[in-house]
């Protein structure tokens, strides 16, 4: 069809007046092939040859030649009376505003039909975060970046245009680096300073090229290339501090106050075995003390109690000062780039070291990169390789979560009257009771005597050969390898208090595990690109791609360790107790994908472009052969209206484009997978996991349900299998417009999208008669989920002079998610949130708390009919408290330069989002079951019901109000995410010796401030409930980049 159009439109040759020849070179004098040469105001044009030369017949009216090339922008040269016109084209800094990198191709923005956000390397360069995706928050409209942990090197959760699936609710987008996939969560071993561009592909048109892997969006990264010329050497260094978080938002009681509260509870009939009550004068036993406490008289005993209570009152420790530190970070990096006429290179080596605020947490990273490309006649060879090694020390407390060994819990949970140090500075630890607390001492002793470490070797490498068969037709093959090789160790010293608490003898524990995850990819493509008659621009490609993944894991656990050597399992003693389980195992897995795909683009007069993509993936991840072939397609069009004749007179407009795309993109992540148990011992210490792709789809057996004394290993049905399973598909519509006015000084973009997930997996209950238990489910393809939204970007060059520039930018995205259909069911409760037809994903689902009953102090709740009850059993669970997936997301930027000074600021925000504050629930629970061991918020002193007639929010200590709507808080925030102030140091020569070409000195801050109604250290998290997480820390660094 398209071909017919092309042929029909193929018109005769233009009227010849005179022939102009010339050569196009870049600023280094290197020939520029494939540049477009057009006579301005006409459709007459040609392209330059391999040596940069061209020849064009110019009509009489032709006055100017326009030279253009992707990556090099556009240059206009007046012809005058010459017959030879040479042009010099410079690689443009503004590349990103002109080009969209889709991974398989680079397209001019005026020909790109979809919705993409291209970010320059500046957004990640030198940002002091261990995982670069942390730096993307607030940068791209519609890209939600929420960090669940401040552990250095942890990846945040990335969600593009809303949650599209229940099963794959938080599946990460596909990351592609120079054509090779890079799995999310390995970014701690990647140096983002090597990046050139980051492009977020959001709609169907570009994502369809990636087939079933593109359903959750694609993030395409390119890395830096060398430029022809003498070597450019850059050295970069950075030192900085990571700051303690703000723990004060809970408004915790100090020692005096919590001792008073313990006394209030005791006096009200709720005694606790705590100093505030046991030693209280109001305690009835105070006047009847027996001499068993070692005092001869009652008066002496009372004096002893008074003294103890007094000393508790005077111990008032602010634990965050002990439990957290100011983490020091530093980086060093050197990169060299350059090249000769046919060969260019970029190499780098870097070291990154960041200590987290938690005492054990740290990331160290060593990285190298070698990017190399050669042009040899018709052959172009590109070789990009990154190799990294990282050592991550993790916070064991964070992993343990709800544990007295978690610093992030004990910072607020522990009663402030514990003194963790002896007078000589040594630690007080051991068995802790509510009268003699050693909790903080135990946290610190635990950290000192344990290790949780991940060592990763990361390789991401790609080799591309492109052979130009003849002008316009290129055969291209990319072969890529991505490997993550992980070693894990969790060790606890045998000769420590925490070691004595370990299972199987109380002599420490050493669990180690190893995992390798390797992905091989080969993409072969034949691409035809030609401009006919300077009017018809055609590009068509056919591709064939193979992906193979190999995954292997193994692990073991040892107990009864030798305390003389650490941290190791060597010399461990014999197994201390009778044992039936094996504490070692291994598993392997993997998958293959075979794909064919094609892409076609046709552009007329650089005004109208239509594109279409189609892809077929076959994958071993789907067992049922009938469902194994997955089809993806998209089509789109863009109207470059600014090029229309009738727009010529509208001078204030400098850009106007209208875009639309539609397609169906399946999501491979939607298919349920299992993990093979790779145990390092007890389930809690499974350090690695190997994905079992086919397991959920086939009926399986597994060992389980052991029967004592039988001497035979029991085997039982593992799962029923799900033979009818097919992939979820997302139908994506995108309509967008780009507008610029005042010579591009003000730029505006808007996109509307409507995405419908079909064949949404819904968990269907299967009967207990199946043998899988009452409530067992299998996912069936039965539902529909919809995401609709609008994304806007606006940026303006407010000041644009030679010495001073000021650019302001804002981006905002609104997403409306709705579960439209759940097939056989209407709702699926998921604990504290619910999947229900008509509601957005992530709607909280709980009882509605209405404060304390003034007469009785009982907690009051709303019943289903809206009336009030004090009986929890009658309280109805509502879904009217919002959702933990924010509806509004955005960011704004300020970039200012004055001569050599540059200032860049980024603010990010989210709103229309609520989350459970479980931490606050603990400190405001108001019952002795909690406050025997949990410090309380001051609010309880004033806002808790204590006697009839009290009109208070929190219930009497006699009753538990439970976990409910009172724990749901607005989690909107505005974060001062990043600030960089830099000074460019000019060239420095001593005599005739150049010391440096240029240098840049900067101060950078990350997470500098946050404004939020949330009461807790951090409103940002990757789930619905805040409980003991590692908050995102504030960081300040100073850095120096030197170019030699």
């Amino acid at each position, binding site marked *: 069809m398209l071909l017919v159009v092309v042929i029909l439109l193929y018109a005769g040759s233009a009227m010849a007046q005179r022939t102009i020849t010339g050569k196009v070179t870049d600023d280094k004098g290197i020939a520029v092939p494939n540049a477009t040469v057009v006579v301005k105001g006409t459709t007459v044009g040609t392209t330059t040859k391999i040596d940069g030369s061209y020849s064009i017949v110019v009509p009489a009216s032709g006055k100017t030649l326009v030279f253009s090339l992707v990556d090099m922008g556009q240059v206009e040269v007046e012809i005058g009376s010459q017959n030879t016109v040479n042009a010099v084209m410079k690689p443009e800094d503004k590349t990103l505003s002109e080009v969209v990198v889709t991974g398989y191709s680079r397209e001019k923005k005026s020909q790109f039909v979809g919705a993409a956000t291209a970010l320059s390397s500046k957004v990640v360069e030198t940002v002091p975060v261990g995982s670069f995706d942390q730096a993307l928050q607030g940068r791209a409209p519609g890209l939600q970046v929420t960090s669940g942990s401040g552990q250095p090197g942890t990846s945040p959760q990335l969600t593009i245009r809303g949650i599209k699936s229940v099963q794959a609710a938080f599946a990460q987008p596909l990351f592609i680096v120079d054509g090779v996939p890079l799995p999310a969560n390995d970014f701690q071993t990647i140096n983002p300073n090597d990046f050139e561009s980051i492009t977020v592909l959001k709609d169907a048109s570009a994502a369809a090229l990636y087939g079933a892997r593109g359903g959750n969006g694609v993030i395409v990264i390119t890395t830096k290339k060398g430029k022809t010329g003498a070597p450019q050497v850059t050295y970069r260094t950075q030192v900085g501090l990571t700051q303690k978080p703000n723990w004060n938002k809970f408004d915790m009681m100090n020692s005096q106050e919590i001792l008073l509260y313990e006394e209030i509870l005791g006096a009200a009939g709720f005694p606790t075995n705590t100093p505030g009550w046991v030693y209280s004068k109001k305690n009835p036993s105070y006047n009847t003390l027996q001499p068993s406490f070692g005092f001869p008289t009652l008066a002496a005993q009372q004096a002893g109690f008074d003294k103890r209570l007094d000393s508790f009152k005077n111990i008032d420790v602010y634990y965050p000062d002990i439990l957290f530190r100011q983490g020091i970070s530093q980086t060093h990096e050197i990169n060299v780039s350059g090249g000769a006429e046919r060969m260019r290179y970029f190499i780098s080596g870097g070291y990154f070291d960041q200590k987290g605020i938690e005492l054990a947490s740290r990331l160290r990273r060593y990285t190298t990169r070698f990017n190399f490309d050669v042009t040899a006649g*018709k052959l172009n060879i590109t070789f990009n390789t990154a190799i990294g090694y990282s050592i991550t020390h993790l916070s064991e407390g964070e992993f343990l979560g709800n544990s007295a060994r978690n610093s992030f819990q004990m910072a607020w949970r522990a009663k402030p009257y514990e003194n963790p140090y002896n007078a000589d500075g040594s630690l007080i630890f051991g068995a802790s009771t509510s009268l003699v607390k050693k909790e903080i001492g135990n946290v610190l002793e635990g950290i000192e005597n344990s290790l949780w470490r991940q060592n990763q070797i990361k390789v991401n490498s790609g080799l591309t050969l492109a052979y130009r068969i003849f002008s316009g037709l290129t*055969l291209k093959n990319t072969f890529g390898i991505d490997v993550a090789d992980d070693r894990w160790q969790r060790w606890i010293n045998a000769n420590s208090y925490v070691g004595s608490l370990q299972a199987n003898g109380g002599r420490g524990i050493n669990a180690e595990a190893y995992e390798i995850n390797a992905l091989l990819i080969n993409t072969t493509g034949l691409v035809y690109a030609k401009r006919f008659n300077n009017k018809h621009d055609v590009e068509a490609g056919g591709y064939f791609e193979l992906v*193979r993944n190999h995954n292997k894991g193994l692990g073991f656990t040892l107990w009864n360790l030798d305390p003389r050597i650490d941290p190791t399992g060597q010399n461990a003693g014999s197994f201390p107790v009778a044992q039936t389980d094996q504490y070692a195992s291994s598993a392997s897995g993997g998958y293959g994908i075979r794909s064919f795909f094609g892409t076609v683009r046709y552009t007329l007069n650089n005004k109208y472009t239509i594109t279409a993509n189609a892809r077929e993936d076959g994958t071993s991840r789907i067992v049922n052969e009938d469902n194994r072939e997955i089809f993806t397609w998209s089509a789109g069009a863009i109207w470059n209206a600014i090029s229309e004749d009738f727009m010529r007179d509208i001078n204030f407009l400098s850009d106007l484009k209208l875009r639309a795309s539609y397609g169906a993109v399946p999501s491979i992540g939607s298919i349920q997978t299992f993990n093979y148990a790779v145990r390092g011992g007890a389930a809690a210490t499974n350090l690695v996991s190997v994905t079992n792709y086919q397991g959920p789809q086939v009926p399986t057996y597994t060992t*389980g349900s052991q029967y004592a004394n039988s001497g*035979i290993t*029991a085997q039982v049905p593992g799962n029923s299998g799900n033979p009818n399973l097919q992939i979820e598909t997302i139908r994506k519509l995108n309509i967008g417009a780009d507008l610029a006015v005042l010579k591009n000084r003000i730029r505006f973009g808007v996109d509307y999208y409507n995405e419908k997930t079909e064949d949404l997996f819904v968990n269907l209950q299967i009967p207990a*008669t199946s043998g899988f*238990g*009452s409530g067992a489910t299998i996912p069936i393809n039965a539902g529909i989920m919809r995401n609709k939204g609008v994304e806007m970007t606006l940026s303006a060059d407010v000041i644009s002079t030679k010495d001073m520039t000021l650019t302001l930018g804002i981006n905002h995205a609104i997403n409306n998610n709705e579960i439209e259909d759940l097939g056989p069911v209407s709702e699926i409760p998921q604990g504290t949130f619910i999947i229900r037809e008509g509601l957005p994903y992530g709607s909280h689902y709980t009882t509605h708390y209405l404060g304390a009953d003034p007469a009785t102090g009982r907690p009051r709740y709303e019943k289903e009919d809206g009336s009030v009850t004090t009986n929890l059993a009658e309280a109805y669970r509502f879904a009217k408290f919002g959702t933990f997936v924010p509806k509004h997301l955005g960011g704004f930027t300020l970039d200012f330069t004055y001569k050599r000074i540059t200032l860049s600021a980024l603010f990010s925000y989210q709103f229309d989002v609520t989350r459970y504050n479980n931490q606050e629930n603990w400190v405001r629970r108001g019952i002795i079951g909690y406050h025997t061991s949990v410090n309380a918020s001051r609010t309880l002193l004033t806002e808790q019901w204590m006697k009839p007639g009290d009109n208070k929010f929190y219930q009497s200590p006699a009753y538990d109000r439970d976990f409910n709507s009172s724990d749901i808080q607005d989690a909107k925030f505005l974060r001062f995410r990043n600030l960089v102030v830099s000074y460019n140091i000019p060239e420095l020569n001593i005599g005739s010796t150049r010391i440096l070409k240029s240098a840049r000195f900067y101060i950078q801050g990350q997470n500098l401030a946050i404004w939020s109604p949330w009461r807790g250290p951090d409103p940002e998290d990757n789930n619905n409930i805040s409980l003991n997480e590692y908050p995102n820390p504030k960081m300040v660094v100073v850095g120096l980049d030197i170019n030699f």
Partner: protein
Amino acid sequence: MKYLVKISLVLFLAAFVSCSKLLDVKETDLITEDVALTTVAFNEQAIIGAYGAMGGFEMGVLLNGVFSDELKVAEFYNAGTVHEWQYSSTDVSIRDTYTAMTPYYRVIDRVNRVLQAVDAADSTRTGDNTLRFRLKAEALFLRAFSHFELYKYYCANYNPDGLAMPYMEIPSINPVTRIKMGPYFQKMKDDLAAAKPNLPSSLSNISRATRLAVTGLQARIALYMRDWATAEASATEYINGLPLSPIADFYKIWKDSSNNEVAWRLDRTSAIGGRIGGLWRAGLSGGTPTNPQIGTVTWRPSDKLWNSYDPVNDVRFGAYLKDEPRLAAAGRGSRLVAKYAGTPYATPEENVNHGKVFRTGEMYLIRAEARAEQNKYTGANSAESDINALRAARITGYVPVTFASKNEAIDAIMLERFKELAFEGHRFWDIKRRGLAVTRLASDAPTSSAVTLPAGNFRFLLPIPNVEIQASGGLLEQNPGYN
């Protein structure tokens, strides 16, 4: 340059060739159904998996205590809806603790898979063919046993036209419907008849089904069917095969140091199967064996039960109950259920005890009831002689009684069942089976409204969990009184 093109083409072709393999990448670490049960030995592993799923035993023990007059509230109470008979079809306690459909249909599914596969399974070892028949027999026995347990939870007293449960004979994830009791009981009887000859008559391994266990179940089923002649005959067969324990050794049964009276037990260790005594008292005490911190007591024996024994002469009192001085000293309620207490406090096997499924004591009571119902309530070979024989094996210095009427005999039998079979999973079913009311002492009831569950109340039948009604697409019929 040409050789590069050639290399590219070769690579391209190689890629094409390997692509079919990519689609057939198999999971190498899975046991798929088609290889799971290919040998007799694998089938035995699957049968062991069925025994390992018999956690319904503990469920029944707890239910019959909590729903009846055996237990009273102790130091922790969150079971109001069940203890006070307030449950609906969506009750959380029922869902989490008493969904008998989960364990028993699990066992049934597991044995049905063996029954499907075992005939064609390869014999790889000597003796496999004998084992094959035994495995089939065990599968049929467990299937009948599990269906009988389900019947007791969800169905009314026996009536051939009454509604039973689905009788599962092949594995299926599709919804099924309830069948009538007539065919349901016939299927159980058929399964047992087929199982019996191929089970070991020896009692050397009572951890797995024995021929006498089938006899015990036949007696029990006949009792529920009010088939008195069969109940008497089967109970007699059991009693003849396994007499009552000598009185001096009775306590050893509950220390797991004697296998007296038991034809089938469910083996438990702290690691596998867990602590049955944890049903009443937190599983493992803190502290040390010499200075234990006894865990929270969740249920204690009812005063009604406690007071029913002669604490001096009845050996059951000491074997079943305990007045713990350590608790009394701590100001805590001191009466404990001691039947499954296991090893001493704060030692590894505390509260661990095997589950005794069939016991001669029960068989005497079945036979006594069957004989009384046949009006053989006094004289030789009567209810009277059975009760006297049983009591003589339990009470030191016991003086035989005589029954003047059938009703007197029945009342005595019911009281004796209460005392003999306490915490063995019978009480609530017995009250229901005899059409009686649950009657608690005021001192045992958590509230004044939870003293009596009137005879014939709809809550004697547990609700089919609402999720199961939904999962069956409405095919499964709910019990009367629930919606």
